[in-house]
């Protein structure tokens, strides 16, 4: 049986590459926004933090930041596994575990932002 990889493109990979870059820009913008808010208010205290996260627009921005972070992390961590983890079964296991953890983080993010208490 020939298991050698047929020499052609898998026709994916470009999207992940673009998303990694776009998500990096999104995260940079959100970070700049946070820093600007902190500078504008002369620091961040509990009252400001609470007011910020009571604002629906800021919650949405935070949600977008987390989605960008999680997708960015997925592409980056998968790259690490593809580079260094040679046994196929172990790579599949690690990639699947990463997806599970990242999706769980997304759920946790939703709980924190809109769960209410």
């Amino acid at each position, binding site marked *: 049986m020939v298991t050698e*990889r047929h*020499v*052609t*493109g*898998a*026709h*994916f*990979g*470009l999207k*992940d*590459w*673009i998303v990694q870059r776009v998500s990096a820009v999104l995260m940079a913008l959100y970070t700049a926004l946070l820093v600007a808010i902190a500078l504008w208010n002369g620091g961040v205290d509990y009252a400001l933090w609470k007011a910020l996260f009571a604002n629906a627009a800021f919650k949405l921005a935070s949600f977008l930041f987390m989605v960008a972070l999680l997708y960015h992390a997925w592409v980056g961590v998968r*790259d690490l596994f*593809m*580079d*260094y983890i040679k046994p196929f079964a172990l790579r599949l296991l690690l990639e699947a575990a990463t997806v599970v953890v990242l999706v769980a983080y997304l759920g946790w993010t939703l709980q924190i932002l809109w769960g209410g208490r």
Partner: protein
Amino acid sequence: MKFRVYRYDPESDAAPYVEDYDVALESTDRMLLDALIRLKAVDDTFSFRRSCREGVCGSDAMNINGKNGLACITNLKELKEPVELRPLPGLPVIRDLIVDMSQFFKQYHSIKPYLVNDTPPPEKERLQSPEDRDELDGLYECILCACCSTACPSFWWNPDKFVGPAGLLQAYRFIADSRDHATSERLDNLEDPYRLFRCHTIMNCIDVCPKGLNPTKAIVKIRDSMVKRTV
């Protein structure tokens, strides 16, 4: 001049070892290759490849004081003693400084390194505008010495799946060629998380290229071409 050379003959040695040499040079010896030919006269079991002795054939690529380069165009005056010579990293060693380049050339062949154009050839030649011809500068000069690919960590980890900087530079040489009609197929061939996207822009390839070429730039242009046709 003092040399520390990687030695390995799989037929007689259990493991690779390092051998020290002190080679008497003549006043006419300029390049590292001259010294290696002297060394070979002292110890004829020492093996390396060389052919054109002027940086055109790419045969005598090796790791010189930790950096890949061509012995024939490496000036002896610029080398710190003892000069440490090792085979190109990441490829199987056949003997001493001679490596098995099969994997490297397999990747090179996978990008179809020839013009694809099914239109009937004109009587004389396929013409290009001077501007179109300029696009090939910095690409066609590659001599396939493998200095870049064997300096690339991504190629070390996945030599069977990642095309490597040399192969990708050659791939872009044909993507950029106005006479080639297979641009789309070429991009399809490369759109792959391993074949192209193992490049993490480490840029060792630019650092070592003895011809002063820039494979990273070619890889960036391949990605640009993909983005343009997709977005």
